[in-house]
């Protein structure tokens, strides 16, 4: 049998270095690599041998991270990039250029929404946003120029669970791949390829690292999508003049996407990851299974506590673990280990209650990130969404008293006590 998840999270992609036998992954903090001779140099450039030339294109430390993520996701390979945003950009620009169209879930991280709604249209790539639960909306949004379906495994902010099997099946019926942002779930909670997704990306800044010290991202290819058969992907199935007229689908039956993404995307857009950051992400990945189990365990306790206060200080708790969540049944099927340690709840008061709540907390850190080992909190109505009126917030699915938590690894009793402190302060607002 092949090695299992917990073993792969420690070992995949890394054999002790042949020169000194270092057990930890060495950090190859070098921009470039000395060629053995002219012949080897030519072979590397012409893809006759594997190896590294220049760290914008590939690096041995980054390669371990890439291979490990491919192993954990069950894909054929990965590409490490500078951030989750860079991962999303690389995936999209490898598949399409001006004139391309994306059908995306409307329940997205704000950064992803900005890229799709405002920035990519400047380059001729447009997106239709749909209710992720409405399969007919996905279908009706498809146009002849559509090249990609995109959603998050758990949507923002309501933790809509993407019905990957259903959405992927529809995409495949139309010769389209499904890309998912798997940042919130990590492969420990959900392996999107097992359910039909074709490409996955992560902000590695979050749970994969777990320590909140680096910005990084990764794209992983399942290798299952047949780009040639689809007929919609000339970037992969027709000669690329920018790389010796290579036809990527002929070079590699299952890794054509990765070939183009590295040989063009990293080469030309250049959003490479620092090897130092790759090392730090690898340090985090080693304990991913342990941390995720604790995140989920702590979250269950916090969610249960807040849910017990609904009708009092708490107006509502939004988490797929709860039977009233619209995707409760789907979450049980796709996410049997648990859904997420990032979730929202609404205070019974409005914006002033939100401010008082945040200011009273001592353990939860008030900042704009998720997936840290430490517990985090943000009040969207007074930070990320402060310009919006109460009415506009509600239209966006956010209550003026909505609080987003990212439950960390602290003792759950301390977290609950901290939340109680905040709730008491909110009640006085």
């Amino acid at each position, binding site marked *: 049998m092949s090695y299992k998840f917990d073993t792969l999270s420690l070992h*995949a992609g890394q054999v002790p270095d042949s020169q000194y036998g270092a057990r930890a992954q060495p950090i190859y903090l070098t921009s470039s690599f000395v060629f053995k001779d002219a012949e080897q140099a030519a072979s590397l450039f012409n893809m006759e041998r594997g190896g590294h030339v220049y760290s914008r294109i590939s*690096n041995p430390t980054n390669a371990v991270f890439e291979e490990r993520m491919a192993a954990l996701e069950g894909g054929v390979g990965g590409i490490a990039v500078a951030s989750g945003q860079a991962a999303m950009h690389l995936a999209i620009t490898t598949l399409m250029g001006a004139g391309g169209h994306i059908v995306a879930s409307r329940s997205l991280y704000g950064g992803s929404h900005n890229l799709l709604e405002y920035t990519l249209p400047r380059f001729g790539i447009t997106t239709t946003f749909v209710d992720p639960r409405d399969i007919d909306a996905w279908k009706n949004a498809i146009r002849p120029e559509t090249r990609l379906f995109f959603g998050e495994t758990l949507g923002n902010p309501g933790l809509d669970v993407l019905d990957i099997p259903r959405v992927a099946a529809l995409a495949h019926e139309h010769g389209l791949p499904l890309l998912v942002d798997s940042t919130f779930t990590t492969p420990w909670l959900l392996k999107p390829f097992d359910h039909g997704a074709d490409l996955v990306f992560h902000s590695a800044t979050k749970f994969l690292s777990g320590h909140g010290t680096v910005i990084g991202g990764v794209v992983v290819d399942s290798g299952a999508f047949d780009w040639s058969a689809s007929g919609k992907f000339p970037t992969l199935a027709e000669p690329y003049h920018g790389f010796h007229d290579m036809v990527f689908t*002929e070079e590699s039956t299952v890794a054509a996407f990765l070939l183009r993404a590295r040989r063009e995307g990293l080469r030309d857009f250049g959003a490479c990851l620092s090897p130092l950051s790759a090392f730090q992400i690898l340090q985090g990945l080693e304990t991913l299974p342990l941390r995720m189990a604790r995140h989920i365990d702590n979250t269950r306790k916090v969610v249960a506590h807040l849910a017990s206060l609904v009708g009092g200080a708490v107006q509502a708790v939004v988490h797929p673990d709860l039977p009233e969540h619209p995707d409760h049944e789907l979450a049980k099927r796709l996410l049997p280990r648990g859904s997420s340690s990032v979730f929202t709840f609404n205070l019974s008061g409005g914006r002033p209650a939100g401010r008082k709540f945040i200011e009273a907390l001592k353990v939860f850190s008030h900042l704009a990130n998720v997936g840290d080992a430490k517990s985090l909190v943000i009040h969207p109505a007074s930070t990320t969404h402060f310009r919006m009126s109460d009415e506009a917030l509600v239209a966006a699915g956010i209550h003026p008293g909505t609080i987003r938590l990212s439950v960390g690894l602290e003792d759950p009793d301390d977290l609950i006590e901290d939340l109680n402190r905040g709730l008491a302060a909110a009640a006085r607002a």
Partner: protein
Amino acid sequence: MDIKVSGQSAYVYNGGKKLDISTVDRQPVVVFIHGAQQDHSCWSLQSRWFAHHGFSVLVPDLPGHGRSAGDPLPSVEALAEWIVALLDTLGVDQATLIGHSMGSLVALEVAVRFPERVSKTVLIGSSLPMPVSQALLDAARDDEPKAAEMINTWSYSASGQIGGNTVPGLWLLGMNRRLMERQKPGVFHVDMNACNAYVRAPDSLSSIAAPLLIVAGSQDRMTSPKAAKALLGFIPGARLVSIDGSGHALMAERPDAVLDALRNFVAAA
């Protein structure tokens, strides 16, 4: 290139070079023959070197595999005849044949039955006979994902199961799993049967006069180093290169060592 072999459409990769059908034989020709449930892409690195160093490279998807049409051929003998038909189609009198696993048996069969068509032969991950366990034969017939899992478990060395690919960012076990999944239903069992059923008396190998190289992985659990040595003993003048630390998937696990062995043997005068 897409051509017709015996009236049926076949895809032949040319190592990343444009090859004109009418001028294939202007350079020495090297044919790479893939193994069971595979396609041309298992030869990507090695074939690219030859294509860019003065050789005409033919890397077919065998019938029914990859992009080639038709049903998979039921025996090594039939596959050998198909390789000769491929050479005929392209007007190639003589070629170096390089085969892996099932493909090595095909190369061996051509070398024995059509010696005038073969300038050199390389058998990678080979044994004679090439018995396939009943469990794998049954899985290939009844449960292809299970058969693929068995192949992946047995085809890679202990370190290959962990990774550390020389090609940055690619996870070999995942690559092989997906490549096997890409083949049409039914191909797996036909290929496994072809390996298992192939019979050739060792005595008949003594007639092979063209130079022959065997490349064996020191940790190969599908075609063991011991089997490679036995095969060496059947073929007068044959040479053996052992690749340290590699399992059966030699071109993936030790691509540079395989390329070096091929270069030293094929490209040498």
